[in-house]
């Protein structure tokens, strides 16, 4: 029985590898091999980055006799990445599994189901932890072998490192179970889940970049104050000291640390085992909102379609984050420019030969690039998915359905763009004609991006997805729209440097505005004619 459950769990883990969710069928052997290759390269790349960090820390700390601090730091990094990588997987596998009731209806002991589910989570924990831990151990072994006297790399060191790798994976599993439970609880009670997810994700991205920008300084600081840091950790965080000592091959510390993590996991196992039945069968529906009849707001057909598109957009954190990030970043850029106004002006003064319109040209390039991060129309047709029958059977013209998608893109992008344009204008103080071009070109560019995204999606829609991340994240249309926008901006910028001997920046901007307007008009014409036919014929 347990064997059958393990087999099912492994199949579940392998699904992401074998099944192509975009096409809804299994991948070919070549496809699987390519995917494995891509992930292997990705993992090796990430591992190489951590190897670099580990190498920076390892030798100085080992030479200072603080091997354990090295393992304490790298061990904590492994745990952090492991928990971050597997906590949402734990949430889905353990607390939200769709087959819990099915398995519980069969003659299978709940503990066996829990055990097998934890095994699946543990495998992912191991993989994420390995990305940091294995390069760290390799870096350590290299230092022991090459820098320290011969015989420093002993069997006990090797065995203790392997033990630490496994024990840490259990620690990651234990933490993931606890945090997964917290996520499940919060998620069950959360209203406006998608908005909260977007905010949390943005905060995470900001923290990540903040941490990334300070990583090098932090490493230098650790190396500079290694002894003091070591004393603090040893005095106040003894379990972390034990973890570090395990990495150095200390048998007693290894035994104590293993016992400690074993005890922690045993407690978590007991709690989970006792509550699994309730947990697996609980109805986690959000608190029911009572319906009260309210005054009705009557809308026109196009108004109703636009509101429908807006509801679709704000209902999905994936859609907002992947296709609407520019909406957040443009005001941030505007405020950043206002704060750094004097720096920007100094920078522009250093290019006096380019003339005052050069600043506007640079600003337009930046604004167009930023606005290209919004690709709301690019997956919008695919996102109709199984609901397409509604748009097709209701008395709505195909153009009305498409226009609503365009309008949403424009609304969500043009308003923050306008704010950013005003900020830019305050900072660079353009002449009147340049200011007009600054106010016209980026919005027209947004028009073109919106039409282009919609056109590409109409030409290659994917209506048969099982998970909305597929049309949003894995669609060629989204990639083409985003990259296409950036490449066009880059191309036009490069062309300026070729033509600047013959054309002033102002004239070049004017020509760009005319060019982008013409492309937008052509795309709009195509959407109104061929595009509407394609939409009506979608199935």
């Amino acid at each position, binding site marked *: 029985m347990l064997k059958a459950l393990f087999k099912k769990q492994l199949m579940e883990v392998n699904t992401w590898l074998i099944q192509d969710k975009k096409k809804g069928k299994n991948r070919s052997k070549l496809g699987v091999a390519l995917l494995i290759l891509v992930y292997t390269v990705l993992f090796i790349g990430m591992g190489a980055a951590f190897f670099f960090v580990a190498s920076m820390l390892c030798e100085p700390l080992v030479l200072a006799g603080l091997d354990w601090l090295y393992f304490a730091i790298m061990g904590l990094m492994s745990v952090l990445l492991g928990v971050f990588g597997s906590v949402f997987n734990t949430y889905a596998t353990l607390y939200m599994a769709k087959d819990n009731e099915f398995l519980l209806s069969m003659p299978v002991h709940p503990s066996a189901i829990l055990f097998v589910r934890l095994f699946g989570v543990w495998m992912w924990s191991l993989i994420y932890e390995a990305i940091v831990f294995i390069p760290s151990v390799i870096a350590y072994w290299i230092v022991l072998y090459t820098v320290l006297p011969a015989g420093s790399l002993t069997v006990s060191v090797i065995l203790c490192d392997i033990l630490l790798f496994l024990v840490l994976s259990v620690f990651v599993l234990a933490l993931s179970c606890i945090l997964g439970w917290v996520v499940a609880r919060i998620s069950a009670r959360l209203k406006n889940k998608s908005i909260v997810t977007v905010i949390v994700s943005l905060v995470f991205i900001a923290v990540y970049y903040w941490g990334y920008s300070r990583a090098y300084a932090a490493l230098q600081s650790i190396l500079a104050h290694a002894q003091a840091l070591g004393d603090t950790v040893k005095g106040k965080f003894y379990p972390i000291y034990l973890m570090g000592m395990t990495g150095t091959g200390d048998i007693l510390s290894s035994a104590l640390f293993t016992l400690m993590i074993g005890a922690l996991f045993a407690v978590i196992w007991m709690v989970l085992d006792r509550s699994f039945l309730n947990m697996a069968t609980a109805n986690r529906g959000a608190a029911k909102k009572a*319906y009260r009849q309210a005054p009705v707001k009557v809308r026109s057909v196009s108004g109703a379609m636009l509101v429908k598109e807006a509801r679709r957009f704000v209902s999905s954190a994936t859609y907002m984050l992947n296709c609407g990030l520019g909406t957040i970043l443009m005001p941030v850029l505007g405020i950043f420019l206002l704060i750094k106004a004097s720096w920007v002006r100094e920078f522009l003064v250093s290019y006096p030969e380019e003339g005052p319109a050069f600043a506007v040209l640079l600003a337009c390039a930046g604004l167009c690039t930023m606005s290209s991060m919004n690709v709301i129309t690019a997956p919008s047709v695919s996102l109709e998915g199984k*609901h397409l029958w509604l748009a097709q059977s209701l*008395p709505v013209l195909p153009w009305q359905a498409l226009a609503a998608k365009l309008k949403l893109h424009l609304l969500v992008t043009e308003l923050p763009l306008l704010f950013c344009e005003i900020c830019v204008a305050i900072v660079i103080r353009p002449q009147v004609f340049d200011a007009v071009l600054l106010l016209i070109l980026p919005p027209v560019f947004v028009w073109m991006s919106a039409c282009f995204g919609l056109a590409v999606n109409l030409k290659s829609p994917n209506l048969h997805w099982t998970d909305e991340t597929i049309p949003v994240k894995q669609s060629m249309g989204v990639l083409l729209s985003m990259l296409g926008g950036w490449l066009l901006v880059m191309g036009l910028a490069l062309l300026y440097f070729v033509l600047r001997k013959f054309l002033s920046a102002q004239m070049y901007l004017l020509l760009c505005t005319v060019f982008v307007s013409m492309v937008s008009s052509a795309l709009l014409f195509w959407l109104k004619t061929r595009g509407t036919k394609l939409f009506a014929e979608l199935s």
Partner: protein
Amino acid sequence: MLQINHLTKRFGDKKAVDDLSLHICPGEIYGFIGHNGAGKTTTLKSCAGIAQFDSGDILIDGVSIKTDPLTCKGKIAYIPDNPDLYDFMTGIQFLNFIADIFGVNALDRQERIAALADAFELTADLAQPISAYSHGMKQKLAIISAWLHNPKLIMMDEPFVGLDPKASHLLKEMMRQACDRGSAIFFSTHVLEVAEKLCDKVAIIKQGKLIRSGTMEEVKGDDSLEDVFLELEEK
């Protein structure tokens, strides 16, 4: 109300609907029966303007769905076999969306939503997101949305699937009342007992071809509809 003239729809080499002609008059409940894959859903989708067809024509209240689909769609309501509604909306948001599209004024929609939601015992759930609805609740919501604009022609694909007995009974009553008001109903079903009791006329389709149609008496004679259907299927 609905005139299907020589409708043919191909999927590749296979004819899903083959030269099918039907005429449904106002006030009629027309049942459409056939085995799985016989062409019922394709026919209904073609009538609703969702599926394009290869030849023939479909007229709704005298207007061709090919040449003036918008006018036709304004007169009909369609409920598919699996009503995938906008699950990012709440029930009430969806109903208001449908009312906006069909131009139902505020007073009428409020009255109709209140009456229909109460009848289907869905009022308390109208503020919930549709994603939290069961299949039966989605079916009820789809039915309410279909009745919201008093359509002249209601087309339903397996409308009784997922409905509880009370809701099924209510739907049958609503179908009869709609026909009494002059609307027409065209629906597919596998439940032959329901078709036998409810329908004024019935059409049997096999491999895309209409093999028998007419009033219930003309089609089944003294036998049960089930016997006739099984006999025709075996031929």
